[in-house]
């Protein structure tokens, strides 16, 4: 195995990931492709493809995924049987911006009106449990001026580190006969302490007011007060007031 410097290795890994991602985005757009994960083990390299329609990615009796494996292996010069492709189903496609952008793209190409397509996507995203979403369709078509149509629902943040934690973005182009439109889908996820369908960290300006705990106030011991002459007095325990 040729030794390459660590810097070159990381750059090469990044380039590999970028090219693989771009190839799969174009190839598997119709299958709701959402992303890849590359795991390198000593024996083989595992490529996990996340998609909404895994059945189509696998193909008939696994034919398509075998074809994809062979393409990847030949292009990147992997030795035989050292690269494996797996398809994994996206657990909540309503919260994946890429999947929704592609879905909107196909709706528009299929002839659905802009308002109906976008409202449909917005509603599906909100029903999947998002905190907020924004769908923007922009561009110039023949016979009209350039414009940007924006459909929003729920809550959205725009600035700061929370945008990196909470927001999933995607942009896609849709090539129509009359011109090219740009689609931008922005989904704001809900806070999820378990970390499965949202970020674990709460929003920085989120204040939780805790209920006061029920407590028994301890009874203080009776204090003997100094007096001038010993006077017989009945000493009562002080009453605890809540």
């Amino acid at each position, binding site marked *: 195995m040729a030794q390459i410097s660590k810097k070159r290795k990381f750059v090469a890994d990044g380039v590999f990931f970028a090219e693989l991602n771009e190839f799969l985005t174009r190839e598997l757009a119709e299958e709701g492709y959402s992303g890849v994960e590359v795991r390198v083990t000593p024996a083989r390299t595992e490529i996990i493809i996340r998609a909404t329609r895994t059945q189509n990615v696998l193909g008939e009796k696994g034919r398509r995924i075998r074809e994809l494996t062979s393409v990847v292996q030949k292009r990147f010069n992997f030795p035989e049987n050292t690269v494996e492709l797996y398809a994994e189903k996206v657990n909540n496609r309503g919260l994946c911006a890429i999947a929704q952008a592609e879905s909107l793209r196909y709706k528009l190409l299929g002839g659905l*009106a*802009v308002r109906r397509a976008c409202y449909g996507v*917005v509603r599906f995203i909100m029903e999947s449990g998002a905190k907020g979403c924004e769908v923007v369709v922009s561009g*110039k078509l023949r016979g009209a001026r*350039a414009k940007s149509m924006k459909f929003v*629902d729920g809550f959205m943040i725009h600035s700061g580190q929370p945008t990196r934690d909470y927001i999933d973005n995607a942009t896609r182009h849709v090539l129509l006969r009359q011109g090219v439109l740009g689609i931008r889908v922005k989904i704001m996820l809900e806070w999820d302490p378990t970390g499965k369908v949202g970020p674990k960290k709460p929003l920085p300006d989120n204040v939780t007011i805790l209920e006061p705990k029920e407590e028994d106030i301890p009874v203080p011991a009776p204090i003997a007060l100094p007096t001038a002459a010993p006077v017989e007095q009945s000493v009562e325990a002080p009453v605890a007031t809540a």
Partner: protein
Amino acid sequence: MVFKYIVEHMEPELDEWSELEYANILQKVGQNRLYLTHVHPDLLARLPERIGPNSGIISTTKAVLELDEVDPAKVILLDPSATQPLEPSDGENFKWLLFGGILGDDPPQDRTKELRKLGFTTRHLGPVQMTTDTAVIVAKHVIEGKTPLDKLEYVDRPEIRLGKKETVELPFRYLVKEGKPQLPNGLLELLKKSNEISLV
């Protein structure tokens, strides 16, 4: 001096958006002051009534240089890439104001260059693209109303609400009146309608 406004129609068809804008210009400049040139003969025959031959707009298939009554030395072409802004004093030396009837893209594709080749004196109306009707109205304010460009109130890229969860951003500069962008009559309906049709 009576100023005349020429719009050289540069789109292959005359769509509803253009129609709305030309009707708006007619309303603001008055009868027989707006020329619509370079209209295709087929299109000329079937112009909608409100911008047709009896509306007060002078429509012709001729291009601007072919018009006999126009003296090229007295024409100003409104061109976004001009170096000088339009000023009230320009009204003393020029009589004709020429605009490209273009349905603009964002960022603009500089389709005015086709008119620039013809060698007219050029002036600009500011750095931000305007719709044809806004450009004519602004030019009228400057030349006839003698108001300098920077004294007029504008809004850039207004976002217009079409519904409870739906807005449209128009990437152009518009004149403002009472805090609202001045849109041609019927544009709001056109925008709502265009979202309801299939794009295929």
